[in-house]
């Protein structure tokens, strides 16, 4: 069943008549229940704008976002988010436990049930027993796992992740990718993950939405037909994986701006033309 429908979504910052920036233009796609959708696109291409619209963090210039058929106008309780910069989205003044518990105060009235939920989410991300720590006492990868724990403790129907693994090293990154897949299986939420890493998108997703450069439009929605459970070595070794990867890469390359010409090259060109 379709969970989220994005229809003709557009967002322009500022007044278009006075040089406002058109970030996204007529974006349409949908997310089915429990589906893993990755959004890839060139950097600076309005991916984050799209997510901010979905979380209703700012208004949109046009189009509709429907969650279970209702228009999304304020942050919906069915959506939880994990942001790229864990150090800025976790609260350093609260322990890991309180960070996770705070949003639950509005959804779970019973104190015991709430703390059970917190402990469950910590175990789920492999941080059981570390609830009393402060986020800044943990490594980057662990902090991002706290952010994931906070999101799943909220029991979202859609988990939105904005470049969630871009700030950690490659080893940690692979671990977090697999953790996300496993957690998704346990929680059953749909995941909408934005990344600029094509390998990551193909590895994780059921479908990959490829965006063009600014203003972002949907270039293609690629169905990823790879067996689950996915495995960092086996899945990435499949010929099909390489085909998907190449296909998405070609799309992205086609839309990316050509490399800017360097000053030295310009100087050479100027001399050659005699001025």
């Amino acid at each position, binding site marked *: 069943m379709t969970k989220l429908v994005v229809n003709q979504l557009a967002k322009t910052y500022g007044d278009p008549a006075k040089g406002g920036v058109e970030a996204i233009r007529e974006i349409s796609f949908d997310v089915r229940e429990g589906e893993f959708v990755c959004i890839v696109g060139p950097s600076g291409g309005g991916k984050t704008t799209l997510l901010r619209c979905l*979380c209703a*963090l700012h208004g949109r210039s046009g189009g509709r976002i429907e969650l279970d058929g209702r228009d999304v106008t304020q*942050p919906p*309780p069915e*959506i*939880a*988010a994990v*942001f790229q*910069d864990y150090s*800025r*989205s*976790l*609260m*350093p*003044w*609260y322990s890991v436990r309180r960070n996770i518990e*705070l*949003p639950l*105060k*509005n*959804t779970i009235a019973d104190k015991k049930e709430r703390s059970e939920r917190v402990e*469950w989410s910590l*175990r*789920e*991300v*492999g941080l*059981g027993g570390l609830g009393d*720590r*402060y986020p*800044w*006492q*943990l*490594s980057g*990868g*662990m902090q991002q*796992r706290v952010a994931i724990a*906070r999101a799943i403790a*909220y029991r979202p129907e859609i988990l939105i992740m904005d470049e969630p693994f871009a700030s950690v090293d490659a*080893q*940690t990154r*692979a*671990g*977090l990718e*697999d*953790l996300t897949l*496993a957690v998704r*299986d*346990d929680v059953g939420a749909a995941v909408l993950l934005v990344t600029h890493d094509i390998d990551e998108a193909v590895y994780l997703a059921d479908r990959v939405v490829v965006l063009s450069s600014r203003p972002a439009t949907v270039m293609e929605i690629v169905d990823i037909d790879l067996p689950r459970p996915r495995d960092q070595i086996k899945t990435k070794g499949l010929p099909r994986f390489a085909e998907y990867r190449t296909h998405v890469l070609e799309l992205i390359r086609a839309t990316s701006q050509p490399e800017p010409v360097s000053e030295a090259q310009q100087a050479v060109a100027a001399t050659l033309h005699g001025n």
Partner: protein
Amino acid sequence: MVGRARKVKTDSMLPSESSQKAGAAGAIASSADPRRGRWRVSSRLLIPLGTTVGLLALWELLARAGALPAEVPPFTEVVSWLAGEFDDGTFWDMLGQTLWHWFAGLLIGGAAGIVVGGTIGMVPFVHRLLNVPLEFLRPIPAIVYLPLLILVMGSRSVTAIILASLGALWPMLFQSVYGVRAIDAQVVETGKVFGLRRRQILWHIMLPSVLPYLATGVRIASSLSLIVAVSAELVGGIPGLGTEMAAAAQNGRYTATYGLLLVSGVLGLLLNAALEGSEKRLLRWHVSHRVVNA
């Protein structure tokens, strides 16, 4: 399927092995050698103590040798005068007066600074409204208003309190503006996405974000409040340490003058230490106070 523990192999569990112990065992000695830790503590206390004792000894020596003007008594004489005063009830009354002026000034000026500064920081319109008058008033020292206030209110405690409040107002006001401006939009948005209500965002996110700025503000405001209170007493004849100092100086009781001077200095030192101590506890999560187990 729910509730099973999961181990992630690729991500190291802890930043470093030693951090677990150091985090629990305490701030002072994270190194393996306990003697080095003890040395660090004692040096932290010994060095400032050494300079203080050295300076006092120098004062004593120079005064005894006659190198200082006759109006400056040796340190030991000042101390023995002070020791006599400690038995005297009027000394404690004076001290109490000054402390009251300091405290009321800090409270009133600080609260006003937080309210006005917070509003300026949050509402750009209010900033535009008040920016010019505030920048005009800011460099005027609080004590300048003393003659006018004495005319209107008389040489009473209220006068000292009003002036001390003015002294405390500015640092709190500007720290509040900076603090509110420095609130990270990302963490506020995270709160919004997770359905926190406005009141919760204010209390759980905005207030803790501003707190480090306010703590600095309180420390600056506290010393300014004390300075202005003592000056107002000294110049305006308002009961307190300041008046007593002025009276002693005018009557040639220099031991008393320096004794009271010493008391106001030690007062400032103790108040600052107390504020720093509570700041350290309240803001132990903040970068400047973190016990980093590196």
